[in-house]
């Protein structure tokens, strides 16, 4: 009887209409925001979108034609860029490892049930939020002022960001850890460190390593970008080659290609490793 209740049908239809109205309104607002945002960005840009559109391939064409003309130089240019690439990879690797170790500590300190000082959980959380929100380039530029240019500034900057970014993800994983092993260890008199090391770490290790690998991919990109502002590595080489301009475009192409191949290779390998680490459970994708 209630199924044929006219009021029910009516209210259902009214709800649908309202839902459609809201959806339509959101769509209109969204389109308006996109359009006006595009206009503003276009107006504030040095060159307009439609003027530049047909020139988008000019620069790639220019560098590739020069590199093509000097194709016999390319192998040596590749070899020239390898030490800088290794530096970039080292920056990424060290900051992932150090950042990961720090993030482990921060994650445990800010997870309910595991933290040794539960009152300080909000403090550590805020601390991680700030470290995560701080763009690497800021830290890097300040450190370049203090330490002089070079990979160390970039490394410290990425590490700091890693503490916050990985710490948050690690703590989300740790929150879902089963506390029974911890209680069991406590009952046999294990101290706090032993409880974490033997009770929690084995549970979270696959997810944590998976996130750390994802972070490594991101850190390679970040380390290349920081090189561009003076923190060494392949980004710095790219900048000097670009500033030189015509005549060094073969080096630019070599750096582009090397960076591209490295990123694709690391992405592919870490993708495979991650899906082996967290079989079944799907990992939240994305930049962190």
């Amino acid at each position, binding site marked *: 009887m209630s199924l044929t209740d006219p009021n029910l049908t009516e209210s259902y239809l009214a709800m649908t209409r309202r839902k459609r109205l809201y959806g339509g309104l959101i769509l209109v607002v969204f389109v308006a925001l996109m359009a006006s945002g595009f206009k503003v960005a276009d107006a504030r840009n040095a*060159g307009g979108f439609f003027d530049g*559109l047909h020139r988008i391939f000019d620069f790639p064409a220019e560098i590739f034609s020069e590199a093509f003309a000097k194709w016999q130089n390319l192998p040596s240019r590749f070899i020239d860029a390898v030490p800088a690439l290794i530096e970039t990879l080292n920056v990424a690797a060290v900051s992932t490892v150090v950042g990961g170790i720090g993030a482990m500590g921060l994650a445990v300190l800010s997870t309910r049930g595991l933290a040794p000082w539960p009152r300080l959980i909000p403090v550590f959380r805020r601390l991680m*939020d700030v470290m995560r929100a701080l763009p690497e*380039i800021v830290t890097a530029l*300040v450190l370049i002022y203090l330490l002089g240019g070079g*990979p160390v500034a970039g490394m410290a900057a990425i590490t700091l960001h890693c503490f916050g970014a990985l710490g948050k993800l690690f703590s989300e994983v740790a929150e879902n850890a089963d506390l029974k092993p911890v209680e069991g260890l406590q009952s046999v008199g294990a101290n706090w460190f032993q409880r974490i090391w033997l009770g929690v770490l084995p549970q979270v290790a696959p997810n944590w390593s998976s996130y750390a690998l994802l972070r490594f991919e991101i850190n390679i990109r970040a380390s290349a*970008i920081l090189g561009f502002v003076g923190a060494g590595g392949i980004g710095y080489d790219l900048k000097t080659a670009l500033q030189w301009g015509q005549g060094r475009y073969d080096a630019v192409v070599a750096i582009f290609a090397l960076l*591209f191949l490295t990123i694709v290779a690391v992405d592919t390998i870490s993708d495979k490793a991650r899906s082996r680490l967290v079989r079944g459970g799907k990992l939240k994708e994305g930049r962190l």
Partner: protein
Amino acid sequence: MSLSMTDITVATRHEDLARSFARRKWRALAVPAILLVYFAYVFAAFDIGGVIAQAKPDHAKVLLRDFWSYKTQVSHENRTGQTVVAIEGERRGTYPADAPPDWVHRKGETTAIDLPGGASVTYLPGTVARLEIPQFGPVTVALDGRKVTLELPQGKNLPDWISASRTRVSVDQGDWRFSMTRNRTETFRYFPGWELFFFTLDSPFHGKSVSQLVSLALWGPRVDPAMPNIQAMARDFWNNNMWHHSNVFWAMAETVLMAFLGTMGAGLIALPLAFLAAVNFTPLNALRLALRRVFDFLRGVDGLIWTVILSRAFGPGPLTGSLAILLTDTGTFGKMFSEALENIDGKQVEGIGSTGANGIQRARFGVIPQIAPVILSQLLYYLESNTRSATVIGALVGGGIGLLLTQAIITQKDWEEVSYYVILIVLTVMAMDSISGWIRRRFIKG
């Protein structure tokens, strides 16, 4: 017999177990050892010892002092005899000659400066400065011809906070400094806070306390007859020509705009492409594979390279930055969305299809409701993370707050502005984070 069988299995199992434990023990030791060797290599490769040795602690001191304090300087040109009181020594922060701050007393050619801790400096006619320093005594610094002379209280040796040479005498007491050279006599007094952050000296609201400002805003007489006080305050704050709040605000908005345009544009482009790249929707398998490669390419060519290429075509500015974000994220979103599409439940689509719906309708009512939460939460997630990336890309392409930030850092003296921008960026990113988290919890997962 069965007993001995069990014995054997127990024995072999024990052996296996022991071996696996030994293996684990070795692995547990090997991992830290490898890491240690690697760190030692990096330490040498990056010359970390050398970097630390070359670090500039005085830069750090300047940075920290600038971060929490500002200085007002009273400078006397020894040649012309002119005395000027200026905040941070900037023209825009110069006090009018007849209205110095209340800790500077001027009478004719004499200027007396009160300093913290009961100290004082007096500029006397004839380029002589008399410093009264409690617990030390009077110090006289004078210009004698081309030489700067120093006279200490009787029986005192030169302390380490005074440095003296033939051309320069300087006294550094932490919260104030004094120096005399041939050309100039200067006293710097440090105050906590950021100078003229709200109102500059030409604003009638400068130097008022919070309670005075509140009462002026709420019931005080109009300072500017043309508008209410609160509006005048907003105008003076907004047009503050020392901190340029309006410019900073627009730069920050530009950065957020770059992130918004880039993320949403990438989502709009990636969604239809993801249908073509998903195994269960693609019309042509070759097309699917080709699109997958395109996504990989877009992601692999890093944001840095896109930025470089695009800024050649479009010039510096926010549009270039948002296009760089758009290109990279189209690759990421294309991959993620097509994976989400491959994981949907086919029954829902079948059900819609059984009512006679066509392809578009099946997609709209059978597929989109299933993947919408995934898509929306990813978009929001990236919007937040791209706000930070937009700062970095802005620094490279010259747009938004990233540009202001790099400019302020390059001058190497406006650290208070750097900290202002950094705090603003951190707050904005944190706000985006909590807003997107709130939307995700409220509308998508709840």
